């Protein structure tokens, strides 16, 4: 058996670090389908998984890839897939199944320019709203956005932990730039990595209810083959997992799905701040654009402009409360992202008119230069 955790210093791409993070998190199943710029995650998993007692399978399309990881998760295995825009669109159907059946799994979307085939080899951050709302119906989801190769490693572990803890598909919303850049990564000793696994049921197996929530709103999860004789369905269901076609049953299930996330926001939401305490202007950014923004904050400070950065590590659920608090004290917000205004709309919504919100966006294909952020700071404030 080869080690799951490649302790040491490495020089690798963001995609490869994402795969190594998954392995370090205990991922033992990857169902994939090739797509630029996420293919390297599948390739690394194909090479590494059999050596650590796991299984890689290349499925016939992305629909099958995500269906397979849901199946593997119900076999009790931590599972993952990775894709980019077009494949992410195909996965939406079964992301919904994962949400409603409360199936832990991780989906990496290494974003490229869209719509449609778009810019396969060039980066973007334009699937952020699709990550939030892409599958039909109303739901809560968790999405992270790595800004560096090192973060691709750690955030993938976080993604698995959150997914196991809250029984929800977790999205890693990376981008082509981080996915394909090479940087130094430090992988710690296995014992230094905190891992969370789903709670498993106790008590009489014949009385097991797959959706009877525990104290944090999440139900312990059995696996197929353990004698629980569970029924799991994409239909609206009750605690027993049985289809329940009524307005009340639907409301009850929806409450559970929403509340397990909404009541645990403090545990789930991760943000980082840089020079935000005394800032007049809050720059909000995530993923590779957070690096643009970091450079812009330093430059602005040199110019005497009091800018600070709120970096979203988890983009969904959105840190509404944080933006509300900032809106009380800053002169305005600038959101930096490689799309034409997605998270910007959230910032604007949460600022609630108390502070203006501006966008430094880009249609996609390249990183945003810090100069454009500086120009916006000078123009707007």
């Amino acid at each position, binding site marked *: 058996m080869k080690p799951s955790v490649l302790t040491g210093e490495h020089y690798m791409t963001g995609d490869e670090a994402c795969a190594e993070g998954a392995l370090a998190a205990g991922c033992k199943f990857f169902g994939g389908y090739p797509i630029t710029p996420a293919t390297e995650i599948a390739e690394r998993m194909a090479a590494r998984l059999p050596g650590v007692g796991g*299984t*890689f399978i290349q499925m*016939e399309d992305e629909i099958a890839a995500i269906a397979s*990881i849901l199946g593997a998760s119900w*076999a009790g295995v931590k*599972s993952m897939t990775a894709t980019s825009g077009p494949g992410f669109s195909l996965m939406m159907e079964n992301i919904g199944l994962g949400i409603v059946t409360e199936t832990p799994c991780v989906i990496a979307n290494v974003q490229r320019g869209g719509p449609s085939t778009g810019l396969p080899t060039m980066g973007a951050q334009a699937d952020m709203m699709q990550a939030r709302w892409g599958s039909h119906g109303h739901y809560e989801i968790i999405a992270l956005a790595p800004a560096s190769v090192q973060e691709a490693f750690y955030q993938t572990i976080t993604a698995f932990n959150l997914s196991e803890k809250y029984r929800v598909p977790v999205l890693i919303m990376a981008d082509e730039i981080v996915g394909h850049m090479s940087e130094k990564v430090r992988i710690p000793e296995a014992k230094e990595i905190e891992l969370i696994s789903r709670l498993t049921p106790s008590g009489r197996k014949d009385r097991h209810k797959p959706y009877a929530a525990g104290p944090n709103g999440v139900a312990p999860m059995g696996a197929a083959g353990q004698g629980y004789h569970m029924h799991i369905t994409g239909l609206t269901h009750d605690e027993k997992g049985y289809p329940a076609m009524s307005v009340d049953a639907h409301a009850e299930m929806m409450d559970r799905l929403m509340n397990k996330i909404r009541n645990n926001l403090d545990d789930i939401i991760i943000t980082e701040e840089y020079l935000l305490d005394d800032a007049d202007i809050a720059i909000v950014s995530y993923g590779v654009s957070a690096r643009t923004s970091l450079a812009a904050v330093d430059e602005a400070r040199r110019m005497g402009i009091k800018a600070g950065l709120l970096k979203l590590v988890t983009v969904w659920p959105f840190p509404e409360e944080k933006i509300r608090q900032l809106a009380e004290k800053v002169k305005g917000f600038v959101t930096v992202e490689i799309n034409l205004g997605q998270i910007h709309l959230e910032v604007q919504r949460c600022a609630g008119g108390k502070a203006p919100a501006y966008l430094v966006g880009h249609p996609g294909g390249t990183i945003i230069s810090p100069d454009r952020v500086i120009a916006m700071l000078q123009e707007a404030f």
Partner: protein
Amino acid sequence: MTGKPKKAAEINQMAHPLDDLLRTDRIPHIWCPGCGIGTAFSACLNAIKASCEDLDKVAMVSGIGCSGRGAGYIKLDSFHTTHGRAIPFATGLKLGNPELNVIVFSGDGDLFAIGGNHFIHAARRNMDITVICVNNLNYGMTGGQAAATTPYNAKTTTTPVGNPESPFNLPLMAYASGATYVARWTILHARDLTLSIQEAINKKGFSFIEVLSPCPINYGRRNKEKSLDTLKAYQDKSIIKNNAHPADLETDFSKSIVLGKFVDTDRLTCIESYDKTCRLG
């Protein structure tokens, strides 16, 4: 016959011999009177009982549709997934825990139209699962639309003057894609069907059984076939021809319905092959 005939109330309280495998708290089921799915389903449950020593290790996966409700009635681990995706879900389940005996029970629309791509690839890679397709020649759940299995010229709600397209030959598709066990029966041949499912479950590799089954409510009604007429046709037109070449099977069931076991071969399963090829050293 001994004793007095039982009254209806007494009969209702009698235990069904398959009760131990049924979620009796979910009965009555949704299937219409005269529908054949129940017969196909009980054949499947009987086969599971006969061939699976450890029922804890059996899992059923269904897609969407009338037959897709099967997973909701079996009192074992059961997964009612999205439309067409039962096979890739089952693939992950099996790869995640190779000890599981995974049975896909679903309909023709689910497995061969929206899920057709998954079917051929699971057969190609010889996934060790058993796929039972209840073929009722149309989409019953949504009210009787044309399917990839609807006979030429048949009437459905989306082919009101007759189907201009031709149906798939399902056993041929399974065979051509690499399935190692292929059979076809009708619900009238419940005993053969049960034995065949038993054989398929015991068989390593991708096993496929097509079960012809009447849908009197949506297909029969529009094609002047009562449930009994369909069963009569199954009796009159069917010929059991084990080992018939799937390419020779008639797709026009009004001419003949060839039944039997057509394919029973061996090759490495997906998991065996993965272990052999990828887990070197």
